């Protein structure tokens, strides 16, 4: 075993949230070490290929996946610096005010301990930090006013514009999508060239992945990144009141201990609870910061109802970004589909660039086709295909959870077990959004329109270490500080009590900035 010199803060995970904490704390003069389980990716590693792009995701999950709708772990997860934000789509929608008091308003799900107004200044700060393109004023038909985005909206292409007619016909509204991608040069990073390869990693830095934003800032301020460092436990002092270090295994499989004044777990909604539960001691017999029994509980996933449309015209569907060209919150009312037995918000995106292979590719828009029929479809769809996606939320239930399994990994750490199922209201929302999507698609004048129905997907992952007002109803406060161990913080979507419907990364960055600034401001009392 090797011990390392004590540092001010050790951060587990060098993805979106960990990078924000690292940047803020390193710039505040703290000695910061990030432990990352995967490689230290460089921009030059990001090959424009759906085949090669699989390398930036884990090889097999350290979780058993169970339940009625098993969670699709690896596609969503990160592996290496940048984390999942190395391959994210960079859609930057916000939550809306109706997301924060769902329990109080509707008697379902959970309430956040904070409101829209508490996060709004941090969405604005993040936009200025990483670069967001969009039309903030146009979005004010759905949300409170805020600062303009630092860049104008992205270019649009026929594959996105095609949806405007359908939305208008149904009296629905679309605005330019807010995206974390450069429509112009920004802070020395180039403008996007619209080649559609965002999701396998943008090597020119036009897309705001952590390698070119907060992680770069953190490194510049002196933060150290240790790749291939697999954390197995957080260690605590004798009375269990303080975290003292983390145990990890380095690339050479040697056990290491990194002492620190503050520990930040930023290893995503699944791995954070796994580490906390694996860190049980006699003072914390159910795992760290888990006297509430809620560590690992209230996991939520998004799901999406995709609608395909095929035109005779050349839509240039290969042009654009994997993010949306347009988005709409017109179905964001939690009861928008109440007549169909559904509950929850829906967020719609239109006109992502088409890829032709892999999970989200055109070939999978007709999974029933194979052989000559598939070949004929691919030819027809090559230039005439476009897609609308309706993302939606499920309400948190305690049964959707992470626990430890009896099987162990190569370091002797118990595997996690993720149990997940959608309830009837979520299934009804999934189906209702297909109906609406096809209705919109038909109104575009498309030659063909169909729902991409298949197994109900699980997208993104939130919860597992939810924030709340009291130690009895939550794991952390609204900043991510655990109620029970003051120098143990949680960063990332794990602290979301409910998910809303939009892509989560913009809110992950905003909450992390809010938490990191709070930690820096109160450093002495937290680090002791």
């Amino acid at each position: 075993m090797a011990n390392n010199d004590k540092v001010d803060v050790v951060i587990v995970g060098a993805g979106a949230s960990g990078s924000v904490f690292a940047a803020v704390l390193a710039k505040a003069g703290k000695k910061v070490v990030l432990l990352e389980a995967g490689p230290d990716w460089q921009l030059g590693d990001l090959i424009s290929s759906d085949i090669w792009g699989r390398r930036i995701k884990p090889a097999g999950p350290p979780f058993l996946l169970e339940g009625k709708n098993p969670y699709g772990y690896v596609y969503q997860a990160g592996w290496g610096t940048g984390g999942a934000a190395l391959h994210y789509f960079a859609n930057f929608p916000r939550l809306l005010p109706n997301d924060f008091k769902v329990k109080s308003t509707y008697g379902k799900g959970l309430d956040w301990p904070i409101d829209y107004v508490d996060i709004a200044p941090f969405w604005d700060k993040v936009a200025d930090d990483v670069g967001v393109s969009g039309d903030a004023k146009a979005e004010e038909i759905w949300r409170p006013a805020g600062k303009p985005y630092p860049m104008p909206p992205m270019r649009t292409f026929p594959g996105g514009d095609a949806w405007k007619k359908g939305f208008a016909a149904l009296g629905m509204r679309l605005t330019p999508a807010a995206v974390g991608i450069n429509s112009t040069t920004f802070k020395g990073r180039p403008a996007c060239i619209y080649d559609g390869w965002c999701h396998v990693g943008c090597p020119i830095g036009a897309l705001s992945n952590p390698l070119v934003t907060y992680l770069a800032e953190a490194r510049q301020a002196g933060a150290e990144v240790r790749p291939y460092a697999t954390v197995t436990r957080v260690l605590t002092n004798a009375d269990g009141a303080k975290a003292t270090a983390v145990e990890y295994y380095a690339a050479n499989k040697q056990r290491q201990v990194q002492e620190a004044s503050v520990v930040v777990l930023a290893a995503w909604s699944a791995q954070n609870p796994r580490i906390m539960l694996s860190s049980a001691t006699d003072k914390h017999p159910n795992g760290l910061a888990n006297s509430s029994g809620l560590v690992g509980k209230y996991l939520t996933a998004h799901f999406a109802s995709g609608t395909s449309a095929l035109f005779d015209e050349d839509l240039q569907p290969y042009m654009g970004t994997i993010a949306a060209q347009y988005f709409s919150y017109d179905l964001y009312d939690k009861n928008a589909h109440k007549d169909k037995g559904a509950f929850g918000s829906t967020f719609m995106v239109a006109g992502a660039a088409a890829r032709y292979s892999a999970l989200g590719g055109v070939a999978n828009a007709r999974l029933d086709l194979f052989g000559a029929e598939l070949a004929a479809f691919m030819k027809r769809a090559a230039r005439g295909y476009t897609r609308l996606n309706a993302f939606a939320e499920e309400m948190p239930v305690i049964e959707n959870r992470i626990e430890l399994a009896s099987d162990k990994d190569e370091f002797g750490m118990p595997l996690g077990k993720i149990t997940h199922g959608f309830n009837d209201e979520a299934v009804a929302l999934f189906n209702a959004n297909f109906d609406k999507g096809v209705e919109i698609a038909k109104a575009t004048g498309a030659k063909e329109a169909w729902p991409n129905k298949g197994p109900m997907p699980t997208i993104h992952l939130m919860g597992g270490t939810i924030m709340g007002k009291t130690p009895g109803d939550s794991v952390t406060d609204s900043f991510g500080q655990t109620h029970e161990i003051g120098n143990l913080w949680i960063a990332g979507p794990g602290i979301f009590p409910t998910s809303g419907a939009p892509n989560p990364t913009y809110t992950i960055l905003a909450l992390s900035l809010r938490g990191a600034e709070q930690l820096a401001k109160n450093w002495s009392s937290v680090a002791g």
Partner: protein
Amino acid sequence: MDEIERRAFMKGAAIGALAFTVGGAEVMLTPRQARAQGVALRTLTADQAATLDAMGETLVPGAKDAGITHFVDQQISIPPQEALLEARIMNVKPPFANFYRAAFGAIDGASTARYGGRNFAQLAGNEQHEFVDLMRQNKLDGWKGPAAGFVYFLLRSDAVDVVYGTMDGYAHLGVPYQPHIAPTRSW
């Protein structure tokens, strides 16, 4: 990513090739080239290769000559962290070779049960089409292995990868590939 590993990775990606072993030496070839040159398979048996050739071609015309069998064989013969297979992101537990062996066993088991002792590769074209149509719907009697629909999904994805997921594939569809960092030849 450390420097040595990155150099190897970039070398392969930059020429659209994988590392195959020929005459005891490692050479960089595309799966199509490896097939055309008759590179020896490392993990799959001759029967498994025949099944995959036939299944790939039934799923996506062109997959056989595009080297689906050499692609899968090479990919299940390297460490899982380096694998580029759809199985990786669909939560298949490494080593991925176990999944493929089980899948081929299930396919040929169900085929022999249904078609008088003939493996999938020995079926006529219309029989292969009928078999796959039942497989995708989980409607094959005597299927023993990973869920038939999931096997259909993953093998179809492998076939789509080698036929459409490459620069040649995009060119065949008549759409520009537009890479930032190119797999400059076939894929």
